[in-house]
């Protein structure tokens, strides 16, 4: 039942963020289809599986990275999430990968680095890992995750809590990734389109 707590927390946070917007601004986060969610399903929609490419025009800026892709695979209730951050001005790629049992216990994932915001003086530290748990929402059409990791900042070490939802669109060709970080005042919103094989 823990996922309901996360869901509620997320809703409160989104509501608070949107309430905090100036009246002239658009809401920071798309409205949630609250009606559809009353209970979780252990089954993830199979349409999540595959490779997804960032739609940069509709997403929060990822600079200095030049590209971000998402690969999701599902086997039984084992979920693999792989985010590939590609090419800064100086080149290079880094992959942020997690394997976690859906609606199961937290898993640990080793990180090469914390790639999410490379403008900040915050680098992965400690055992260079994050703990992550995953759960389903919206009858399997939303995957929620909560993860914890520690970064090295100017004043020492800081633990980050990151709540993420991967929402599958009605026609299964788009994922909205919405993320709340415990330290960031605004959510991050990435839009992914299904990669079309050539």
């Amino acid at each position, binding site marked *: 039942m823990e996922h309901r707590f996360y869901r509620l927390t997320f809703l409160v946070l989104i509501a608070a963020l949107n309430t905090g917007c100036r009246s002239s601004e658009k809401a920071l986060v798309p409205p949630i289809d609250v009606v559809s969610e009353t209970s979780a399903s252990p089954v993830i929609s199979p349409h999540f599986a595959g490779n997804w490419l960032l739609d940069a025009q509709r997403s929060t800026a990822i600079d200095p990275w030049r590209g971000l892709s998402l690969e999701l695979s599902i086997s039984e209730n084992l979920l693999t999430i792989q985010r590939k951050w590609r090419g800064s001005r100086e080149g*290079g790629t*880094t992959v942020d990968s997690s394997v976690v049992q859906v609606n199961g216990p937290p898993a640990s994932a080793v990180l090469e680095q914390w790639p999410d915001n*490379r403008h900040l*003086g915050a680098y992965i530290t400690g055992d260079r890992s994050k703990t992550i748990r995953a759960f389903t929402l919206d009858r399997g059409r939303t995957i929620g995750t909560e993860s914890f990791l520690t970064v090295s900042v100017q*004043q020492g070490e800081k633990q980050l809590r990151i709540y993420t939802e991967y929402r599958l669109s009605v026609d299964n060709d788009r994922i909205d990734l919405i993320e709340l*970080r415990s330290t*960031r005042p605004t959510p991050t919103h990435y839009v992914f389109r299904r990669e079309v094989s050539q």
Partner: protein
Amino acid sequence: MKIKCLTLIVLFSFLYEGAMFAQTSEPAGREASMMRLSSNWSMDGDLPTQSLLISLQGVANQGSPNLYFIYPPAWTFTFTEAVYGYYQDTHNIAFTELSSADDALSLYSGAADGYVVWDDSVRTSLIIAFTVAGLENAVVVNEDLIPLVESHGLKMVDDLRGRYRGMTDFQIYKDAWDRYGDLVSKDFIVWMGGVHGRRMEPGVADFGIYQKAFFTDLSANARDTLEVNLADEILDEMNDGGIVLGWHSYKKDTEGQHVTLVSQHGLRMEGLNSLPNTSFNIQIPTTPGYTFTNNHNVVDERTYVPAAKVYVSAVQTDGLGLGAWLKPGRGKMPYAWEVTMNWAWMSPALLQFFYEQATPNDYFIGVLSGPGYMYPKAIPDDKRPLLIDEARKLMDTLDLKVFEIMDYSEGTRTLGNLDLTEEVVDDYYEGMPEALGFINGYGPANTYDLRDGKPLISYDYYLGERRPVEEAVADLEELARMNTERPYFLLLHVRQWSTIEHVIGILDQLGPEFEVVPLDLFLKLASEKPDFPTRYASPDRLPTGPLHAR
């Protein structure tokens, strides 16, 4: 045989000290020529003529400053038009404008001993032609321009047409080094990189020709084994403290790879390939009695007590002459500017131009890791103290109290380790005892120190020119949440393409807890109540950056 002559370090000390103190009266009147260059740098467009002109400049300015160019508005260095006016107003130089290469040759062809022909079908042959131009006191032309230079009485001294067809860059440069390596300067070398393909922006070629330098754009990318090894061999022949002018090729390698290679030889980079008019500027001293004076904000006798605030200080990246200096907004907020310190002797009056324009909110700092652009972790341990000492002398001449260090020899902020080792930090503290403090990074880093009231603080934020305002505001607020103690000292590195208006637009959205202060005051306040534990390069930060030369 490799001949190590008097080190540049000593030579340059005399040069700039001479420039500072030799004058005791108003500047003597001079006459010179000015010409406007076009914005077309294509091999199929104006590059042949512009290359001819720039090589003529290198030849015509031998002995006295005769030919000055105003570069187009979009040129990387933005000051040539403004400095043209400044030279007239304050340095008593009367310019006559030239309107064509024909005009320029009419006046200055007599200074040249001939011309060298490069091959239109081999771009690299133009780079080799610049080397020949310096050695032969010649101008460079393609086939189409031969009638023009011959109409001014010039004879061919070398012909590269056909010589390099079908050869790789490694083969071309190997041939050129075998031919000219014993003849060229060992104090200067030019990396004629930057843009590639059918374009070239050889603004620094006049100075390379003036110095009889070897020109190349060899790769420092480890995957280009032959080119890297040849570059290594050539740089090994340079004299201690030698200068690598120009820039790396955007096609072949990265800035980090190139400057790492240069630093591994104890040499110093002086960018860019587009640096204009240096054969002219090096001969224009500061006005009589002028001394460089910075806008210091810290008073020795005063006690500084930081409040429970987030103190922010902004530094523009990449040196004077690039970016925001001449754009609107300068002076509206405290801003630190990276002084290209070698201009103290390479372009003293140009540096005077910047110092005289400074508002009370403009604060100059010394850069970048040494007397030029270098990566201290890559510099051999035995060479680093001497280079730091040379940087200290330049700091003293230029009234600079804060020194900036940067090291991309182990990758970048996205994939790498920008932190400094304790041994490197020791060398700066020992070699620059007069410094008020040090700053480190380009992107954010995590090296911190405090010794004898002098802090070393790393950048905590990099503001790219394309970062949306709302994201930048959220970034800074996030840093203030990640660093919860107050005071918090948030050092901000601003990409030079960002205007100060843009930066103000971001900082104005932050709450009253944030306060923007000048960099020297920022460091002084940080020394009174440091919010950082001492830290150096750590095994926690893996050097996972892109491949480097070694």
